[in-house]
Each structure stands twice: as structure tokens, then as C-alpha cells.
């Protein structure tokens, strides 16, 4: 589908996630339901707003890395926007440059972790 985006960041997010950030009208339901906002620097709805404005500094925020992809936001969004896919797109932009969020070899007490946790972390936080 050909959609013209007003800025490069929104376009890139659309290419990776298939989500049009301009559908968001800032109701805040995603941020209200997100279990991890206490540990984030920017709220999920603020992140979407920044993408709408084309503010590339959002790529340096902690928020996409704190997101646990629990899908609460996506389930509740009244505009059927898949916010978890938008967060994944933000992560992918960094990961695809070869910049991993965690160093697998530097993890502490790795032998205590169940395989499921390590595989999930590898998928989400390494490229």
C-alpha cells in the first residue's frame, strides 16, 4: 500500500511495522494500561507523538527497550493501531544497524536462567 508520510521517521516506522502513526489521536489509553510506564522515560503515547512530529531523538529513548511486548496497548487502542509493532520498529531501526541492546556474553548468572527467557531476550534485544 502506497502511503505518503510527512517525515522520514514516520515513513520508516510504516515500512517496518505497517502502522500509520497518524491514526493516533492521543487518547492516552495505551499509556494508561501499560504496566511498564514506571520504568520508561517517555510514555507510549508521547513516543507516537514524537514520531508524528518526526523527532528522531525518540530513537535514543529507553521506552522501546522497556516495552515487554505484552500487547495490552494494542488490545485497547480505539483506533486499532498496533503500538507494540511500532515499538518493535523503533527497536529494529537500532538493531539493524548492528547495535545490540544487551551483550549476551556479559550476562550474570546465565546458567540460572531458563531457555525461554534467554531466547526471548536474544530475539528482542539483539540483532
Amino acid at each position, binding site marked *: 500500500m502506497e502511503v505518503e508520510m510527512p517525515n522520514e521517521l514516520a515513513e520508516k516506522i510504516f515500512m517496518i511495522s505497517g502502522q500509520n502513526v497518524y491514526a493516533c489521536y492521543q487518547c492516552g489509553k495505551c499509556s494508561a494500561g501499560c504496566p511498564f510506564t514506571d520504568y520508561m522515560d517517555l510514555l507510549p503515547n508521547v513516543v507516537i507523538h514524537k514520531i508524528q512530529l518526526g523527532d528522531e531523538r525518540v530513537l535514543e529513548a529507553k521506552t522501546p527497550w522497556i516495552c515487554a511486548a505484552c500487547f495490552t496497548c494494542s488490545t485497547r487502542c480505539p483506533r486499532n493501531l498496533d503500538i507494540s509493532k511500532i515499538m518493535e520498529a523503533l527497536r529494529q531501526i537500532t538493531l539493524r544497524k548492528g547495535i545490540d541492546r544487551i551483550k*549476551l556474553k556479559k550476562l550474570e548468572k546465565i546458567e*540460572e536462567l531458563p531457555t525461554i527467557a534467554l531466547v526471548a531476550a*536474544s530475539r528482542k534485544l539483539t540483532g
Partner: protein
Amino acid sequence: MRMSQAKTTVKQPKMKMVTIYVMGKKYEVPEGLTILKALEYVGYRLIRGVGCRAGFCGACATVYRFKDDYKLYTGLACQTTVKDGMYLVMIPFVPAKKPVYDIEKLKPDASTVISIFPELTRCVACNTCTKSCPQEIQVMDAVQEILRGNLEKAAHMVFDCIACGICSMRCPAEIVHYHVFQLVRRLYGKYIAKKSKHLEDKLKALEEGAFKEELDKLVTAGPSVWKRLYESREIEK
């Protein structure tokens, strides 16, 4: 009569030649040669990327393609014959730092292997490793068996691994399979495999001096006795 005027000459059958490209440069080589022999035929002198020449040491990993075919093929240079239109390059070395571990302190389970090689959790089951293996090992399946702790099964599956490194070069998860497999085989051999009772008994007997007298006699016997004993072995008859 000069040799050059001799009437009888042996007719040489015309050798069938094939065209190969080594790192992009075109050569004509006789059909039926192995890649290794073909490289030496055209003048390469190999000091790396060559070893036993018998398909066992894994030194001569080679990658090649054919015209109009997107597929990437792999093989050992000493075991693969040249084909017309082969575009090839040798991979004489695969970079992979050996991990340091104390086998005495390890437990034979999945967590141990994963803690030393956490990149195993990045495996996406793409099967590129299996497709690359010149020994026809089910590499991906072996990695999966390791992830679920079936170290015995994995150790048997990877017995034929010669550590050529082609799988590791192609793996998108950057796993170094041959190092992982070596650890698994070591863990299997040390902790899981059945112990050989007669070996242990014999070693114990040795330590307790059961063969001391015989050995001392042999050691001090001298070269003429050794030569005689060597030549009269059962195996020589």
C-alpha cells in the same frame, strides 16, 4: 638418428578441459581433478587451507557457485571434483576464539552449554548450517537437541564434524558450531558415556605395579633386543 625424427610416437588422448574461476580469474583445468589439485595445476602453492588431502582435517573448506544459479554450494576442496563453470573461493580460516572452561567443573546439561555459548539462543532454525555441511550432518537438529538438553543424542549426531567452519561462516546467529559440538562431545565422553570397566581395572593394575618388572626388563634390554622383539611380532607374520 635424432630422437626428434623418430617415427613412432605415442598418441596422447586429448584431455577434456573445463573452465573454472578462482577468485574471479578464469582458468582451464583438466576434467576430473579435485579443486585442490586444480588449484595446484594452475600454479597456486597452498600453505594454508590444505592438510590431510583425505577429507578428514577440515582445512580446505571451499565455497562455489555456477552461472545462472543463485545457490551457494560448499565442500572440501580435496574431495570435490571441478565442474565446468565453477566460481570458487577457498576459506582457509574461520575466526572463532576458543572459549576457556574447566571440564572438571562443568555439569552435562543444556544450561552449562548455553552459559558458555549464549549465542545458541539466537538460532532461528533457518537450516543454513545443515545445507552447508560437507559431512551431511544435521547441524540445526543437533543445535536444537542441545537447547533441550539431549547432549547424548547431540554428541552422536555430530561425531563426523571435522570443524571446517563453513556452517559458522554462514550462520546469521553467529554461532560457532564446531566449538559448541566439541564441548558437547567432551561432556558426553566424560560424564554421560558408560565407563569402561576393563580400562579402569587395567589402569589400576598398572598404577599398582602389576607390569613393573616386565616394563623395567624391556626398558633396559637394549636396541638389538628391541629390534628382534619388534620384528617377531604377531602382526608381522
